[in-house]
Every structure is written in structure tokens, then in C-alpha cells.
């Protein structure tokens, strides 16, 4: 039963991901991206990582795609702004990508092996994550905060309006 639900949600995720890259309208792509993130969050839930799925919805679907939609609305695209890509590029990149995919599949199944069944949930409660985060991964955590600070300053500089010359 759980496996059927898992298969359903994973197919949903893949379909909406295909919708992201295939849509002609950017807003449809953004909406498909939100649905894809929802599908991923439900996959995390089925695996027992409840905290992670909520964080996924909170940050990805609730903040990042909102930023995307903001930019789309601010930039006000009127006509379809994209020329169609050359067919040769599509064919070549597809061939390359699927070859890579097959190679990765082989590598993963050899190295990672089988995934335990869905009945055993992952050890992913908030307590275990926070214990690791504040003991073993404390240094990356602090570096990340400084990184985010640098980022905020950088975005502030990037998005400043152009200075007009005072006569």
C-alpha cells in the first residue's frame, strides 16, 4: 500500500518536473515547480523524515518560488520571449543526459545498494538532527551563518537602483 502511494507521488514529481522544463509560459513553469516540491515533500514524509518535508515546503515552495514569481511579475514579460532552441541542441543534450543517467544508475545501484523498505522510517526526528547539527556539524553551521550574511550584503549591492548623475 505504501509502495503504491510512493510510486504515485514519485511519478507526480517527475511529471511536474517535466512540466517545468517544457512549459512555454513561465508562470506555468513556476506553478509546476511548486507542485514538484510538494511531490518531493510527500516523498520525504513517506520515508519518515517529517521535519525535512516541512522545511522543504517552508523554504522551497514557500519562499524560493515566491521569489521567482516576484521576478516574473516585476519583469513583465509580454510576448513569449524565447526563440525555440535548435533541434540539434535538443537531440544532442538529450542523448548526453540520458547516457549520464544510465551511468549514474549503474554506479548508484552498485555503491548504494538497496534502500530499506518503507516500513522502517528514517531516524530523522528534530532531536537527532539538532544533536548532529550542534555537535559534529557546528563549524559548517557557523560558516553558513556568515555566508548568509555576506549574501544579504551582496544582494543588497546587486539590487541597488542605478545612481543618477546629479547635474
Amino acid at each position, binding site marked *: 500500500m505504501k*509502495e503504491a502511494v510512493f510510486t504515485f507521488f*514519485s511519478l507526480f*514529481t517527475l511529471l511536474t*518536473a*517535466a512540466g*517545468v*522544463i517544457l512549459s512555454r509560459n*513561465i508562470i506555468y*513553469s513556476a506553478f509546476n*515547480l511548486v507542485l*514538484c*516540491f510538494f511531490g*518531493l515533500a510527500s*516523498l520525504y514524509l513517506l520515508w519518515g*523524515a517529517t521535519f*525535512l518535508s516541512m*522545511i522543504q515546503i517552508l*523554504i*522551497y515552495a514557500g519562499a*524560493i518560488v515566491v*521569489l*521567482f514569481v516576484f*521576478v*516574473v511579475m516585476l*519583469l513583465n514579460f509580454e510576448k513569449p*520571449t*524565447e*526563440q525555440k*532552441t535548435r533541434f540539434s541542441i*535538443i537531440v544532442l*543534450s538529450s542523448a*548526453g*543526459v*540520458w547516457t*549520464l*543517467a*544510465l551511468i*549514474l544508475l549503474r554506479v*548508484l*545501484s552498485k555503491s*548504494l545498494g*538497496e*534502500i*530499506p523498505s518503507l516500513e522502517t522510517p*528514517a*531516524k*530523522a526526528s528534530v532531536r537527532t*538532527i539538532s544533536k*548532529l*547539527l550542534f555537535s559534529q*556539524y557546528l563549524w*559548517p553551521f557557523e560558516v*553558513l551563518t556568515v*555566508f*548568509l550574511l555576506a*549574501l544579504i550584503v*551582496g*544582494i543588497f549591492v*546587486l*539590487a541597488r537602483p542605478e545612481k543618477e548623475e546629479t547635474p
Partner: protein
Amino acid sequence: MILAEKLTSMAYWSHFVSIALFALGLLGFLTRRNALIVLMSLELMLNAVNLLLVQISMRTGTSEGIVLVVFVITVAAAEVAVGLGIILNLYRMKKTVDLGSFRNLSG
């Protein structure tokens, strides 16, 4: 074929999902010309990696994979913000975000 067997058995299906997601993201990244959709495909690739990290965490039975996913999500959010700032500036320069029209650096 062994591959088909592997694809349909439950144990390897999640590998396939994350690889397919990565492949779709990569395809969109290489093919589309609109900068926003390229950024979205980048997000798809990062999410595929997150999925794989959660599978690793399930395999080894610890939460280290999930801690790594938290880091990846944070950095991805940050990078999207910067990327959108850059796109805004590109739009200010050229009034378009079609990647084919930014040829200042090409020979």
C-alpha cells in the same frame, strides 16, 4: 534485462526517481534559453541530490544525510536569491532575459 528488473523493483525505484529528476533538470538547464527557467532547472537538480541524500541517510541509519540536506537547502535558497538579483541586472541592461542575446564575451 537486468536494468528493467532493477527499475521496477521497489528497492531501486528511488534511485531511478532521483536520477530522472536530475536528468530532467540537466536537460532543462542545457536546452532552455530563458534565464529564469534555467534557474528553475538548477533547483530541480539540487532537489534530486537532496532526494539521494535522504536515501543515503535511510541506508546508513543515521541522520547525517538529513543534516547535509538542511545545508543544501539553505545554500540553494541563497543561490537562487543571488541568481535572481543577477537576472534583474541583466534585464536592466538588455531588456530581455533570453540567454542567446548576451554575447558580449563571445569571440
